[in-house]
């Protein structure tokens, strides 16, 4: 009854289910054990029936229960007529139906599991009927079908015959056929056979050929859209099919297929076909899962090993660091017994500090209790450390192994349980000595500071006094400066007045003289014939005096200019200057007559214009006063001393009476008559004034009739 195609279908379903199981592992049992509410028809043997106790039973009901159980559901089965229970499911009053033929109309109302049963149609005839061996043979025969059954749909669709009669039930159809009327009934094979047995009709048999196209797939149905339940039921169904419950139920309800009994070989091959792939898949899944687990576990173990290794390395480094720190520390590290100060642990630095070659030697040999230079300090330390638990920067003196003494500073804490003290110690001898020295220096410094402060205070007082004195001086200076400024201003003002005066003199005083002289001349020119000789002599006298006055004014202005003019000092070649001046002022006759001798004259630092005037006046005088002399010789020479230089002009002329030497350089002073030697008596005054302005001096010597020597001296500072 179940053909090979069905087996293949079932097999594939089972494989899918097995695969799902393998993938999801224990997942299938994880769902809540809900109770599913379903409903069954009372009379659709052998699928849905009622047992003797009135409970629902049948192949479909049992299959549903088994499938639900496989995925962890309880099932509560109600009983009702088909139409009602179909409505109940459609409207959600129940969860599922165990037996629903899948048709396009119903697919709109429900969702279906995979079909667990396909029922095929069969052609039923009265026994002994001949001539019907295929569907084609039915043509022309009278066929009975139940109204609205899919059998009717089928025969009309396939147009198996033109004589179709419908009945209300298949019972009616079979009874009619059994009574000898009509030729055949078309319905489902299993249901038909069961019904015939029930009705105890024996003269009807099912023809033994297939009815292609008339097949109905039966499934579990759930409410439209209840995909979750649908999946669970599909899964359960697959499990049940796979683990042979399906087969057992089939045997129970349909009995062994007589005539369709499979051979042992076939059974084994089917079993192998089913089981081997399942087994393979399961084993594969298990292997994969196992490998994954091993991989994960290996990974985590490796990680753990690595981490532990890291921790061990870190610990090693840490330990080494601490060991190095301890042994190479530049401070001493120690542990001593409280009771007697016995050294229990030490680093190399500590040993060195206490005068031992190494830590081994100091341990158990040195007791601090015996080596405090001032035993009181140990007592003090012990008291502190017992009350506070620690001491910090405690300073004490210790004996080294060789009884030399050093200063130590240590910090330590007590360990009461172990009865020891441990800590760090530093040799501070240098620091202590420096401190003591510093203290001494500080005392000295303080004394020094006091002494210096006193000294400074005295100086400050003196300075105060000096400052006051200075202030008075500055005040005086300011006052004097102001006075000087005022004087200077006055001087400038009077200088300006003098300028104006001399200007006025030079212009205004001359104009009348010009007029006197000029108009006297006009008188002589225009009225000469009316004047006698005496008149002409008077006019000449007027003119001569006017000219003389002009000369006096010129000389006065000259003298004034010498005083007022600005001095510009430069290096003057005195020898050249003397020659040039002589050349300028000596007339042609004089140059012939006179012997002009110039010695070696040093240069002078002076105003060139003014010094030429000096030379001019002196040489002019020499010429003038030698006019009547026998020896006409002028000598110019210089005499050098350490501090000064003297230049002289010497002549062999008229000379002068040395008694009147004081008057020589006075203004308008003359020692000779003007008729003898003309002049105004200003020349030497100008010489003196110029030389005085240069910081020098003038002097003269002479003898009447023998000549004179006029000299001027300039200080060397002027000439350097």
């Amino acid at each position, binding site marked *: 009854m179940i053909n090979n195609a069905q087996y293949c279908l079932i097999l594939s379903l089972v494989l899918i289910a097995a695969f799902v199981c393998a993938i999801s592992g224990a997942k299938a049992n994880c769902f809540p054990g809900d109770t599913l509410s379903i409903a069954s028809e009372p009379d659709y043997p052998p699928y849905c029936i009622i047992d003797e106790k009135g409970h629902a039973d049948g192949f479909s009901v049992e299959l549903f229960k088994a499938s639900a159980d496989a995925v962890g559901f309880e099932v509560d089965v109600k009983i009702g007529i088909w139409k009602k229970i179909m409505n109940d499911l459609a409207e959600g009053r129940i969860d599922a139906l165990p037996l629903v033929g899948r048709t396009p109309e119903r697919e709109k109302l429900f969702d279906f599991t995979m079909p667990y049963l396909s029922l095929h149609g069969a052609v039923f005839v009265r026994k002994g009927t001949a001539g019907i061996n295929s569907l084609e043979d039915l043509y022309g025969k009278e066929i009975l079908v139940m109204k609205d059954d899919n059998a009717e749909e089928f025969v009309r669709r396939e147009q198996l015959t033109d004589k179709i009669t419908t009945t209300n039930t298949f019972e009616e159809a079979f009874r009619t056929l059994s009574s000898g009327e009509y030729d055949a009934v078309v319905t489902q094979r299993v249901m038909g056979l069961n019904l015939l047995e029930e009705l105890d009709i024996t003269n009807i048999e099912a023809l033994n050929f297939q009815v292609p196209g008339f097949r109905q797939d039966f499934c579990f149905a759930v409410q439209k859209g209840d995909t979750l339940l649908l999946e669970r039921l599909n899964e359960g169904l697959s499990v049940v099919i796979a683990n042979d419950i399906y087969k057992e139920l089939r045997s129970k309800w349909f009995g062994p297929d007589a005539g369709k009994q499979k051979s042992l070989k076939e059974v084994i091959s089917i079993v192998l076909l089913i089981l081997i792939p399942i087994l393979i898949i399961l084993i594969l899944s298990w292997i994969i899962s196992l490998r994954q687990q091993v991989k994960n576990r290996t990974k985590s173990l490796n990680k753990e090993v690595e981490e532990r290794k890291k921790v061990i390395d870190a610990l090693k480094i840490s330990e080494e660091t601490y060991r190095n720190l301890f042994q190479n520390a530049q401070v001493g590290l120690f542990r001593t017994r409280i009771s007697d100060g016995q050294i229990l642990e030490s680093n190399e630095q500590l040993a060195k500090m206490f005068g031992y070659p190494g830590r081994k030697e100091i341990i158990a040999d040195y007791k601090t209790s015996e080596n405090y230079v001032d035993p009181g300090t140990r007592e003090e330390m012990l008291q502190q450390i017992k009350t506070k638990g620690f001491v910090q920067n405690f300073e004490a003196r210790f004996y080294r192994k060789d009884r030399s003494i050093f200063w130590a500073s240590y910090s330590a804490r007590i360990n009461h349980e172990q009865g020891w003290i441990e800590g760090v110690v530093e040799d501070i001898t240098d620091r202590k000595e420096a401190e003591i020295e510093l203290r001494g220096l500080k005392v000295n410094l303080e004394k020094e500071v006091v002494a210096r402060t006193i000294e400074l205070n005295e100086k400050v007082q003196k300075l105060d006094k000096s400052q006051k004195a200075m202030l008075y001086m500055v005040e005086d200076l300011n006052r004097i400066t102001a006075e000087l400024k005022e004087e200077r201003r006055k001087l400038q003002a009077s200088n300006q007045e003098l300028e104006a005066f001399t200007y006025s003199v030079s212009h205004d005083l001359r*104009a009348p003289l010009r007029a006197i002289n000029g108009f006297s001349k006009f008188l002589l020119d225009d009225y000469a014939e009316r004047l006698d000789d005496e008149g002409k002599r008077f006019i000449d006298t007027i003119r001569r005096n006017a000219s003389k006055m002009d000369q006096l004014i010129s000389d006065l202005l000259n003298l004034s200019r010498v005083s007022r003019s600005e001095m510009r000092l430069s290096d003057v070649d005195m020898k050249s200057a003397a020659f040039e001046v002589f050349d300028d002022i000596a007339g042609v006759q004089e140059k012939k007559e006179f012997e002009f001798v110039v010695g070696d004259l040093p240069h002078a630092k002076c105003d060139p214009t003014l010094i030429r005037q000096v030379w001019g006046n002196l040489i002019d005088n020499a010429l003038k006063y030698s006019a009547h002399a026998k020896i006409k010789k002028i000598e110019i020479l210089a005499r050098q001393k350490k501090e000064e230089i003297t230049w002289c002009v010497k002549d062999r002329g008229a000379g002068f009476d040395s008694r009147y030497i004081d008057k020589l350089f006075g203004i308008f002073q003359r020692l000779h008559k003007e008729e003898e030697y003309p002049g105004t008596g200003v020349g030497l005054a100008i010489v003196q004034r110029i030389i005085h302005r240069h910081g020098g001096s003038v002097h003269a010597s002479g003898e009447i009739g023998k000549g004179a020597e006029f000299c001027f001296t300039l200080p060397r500072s002027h000439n350097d």
Partner: protein
Amino acid sequence: MEKTDQVEILIVEDNPDDAEMALRALKKNKLANNILVVDDGEKALDFIFARGDYKERSSKNRPKIILLDLKLPKVSGLEVLKELKANKKTRIIPVIVLTSSKEESDIVESYELGVNSYIVKPVDFDKFVDSVNDLGLYWLLLNQQPSV
């Protein structure tokens, strides 16, 4: 006095005696024609630039020479000199400063302002005549002005 347009020699002199002596000296040198004497600096400038009392005359006719005293009322001789030498048209006129002083500051300043010659009025009239003679010959006979 000649017509102002024909003036050849302008004498600027406030002292009438000095002016007369100058005229006489010029006359002695046969230079008496076309001479004008003004007695202050302002009049001198008015004449030269044809303004004030002299606005009727043509400024194109410039004197051939100016004898200028330094000590003058109103506008001093140095100021007159400065103005003349600052003007493009008048700075070519030869100016001879006549003064009674040999004061250096006057001489230096006059030369700085561009004076052409300088003589000190001597007390001795004969020397004055000689000086005028020299100057007159030099400037009026030997030296021809460029015509502007």
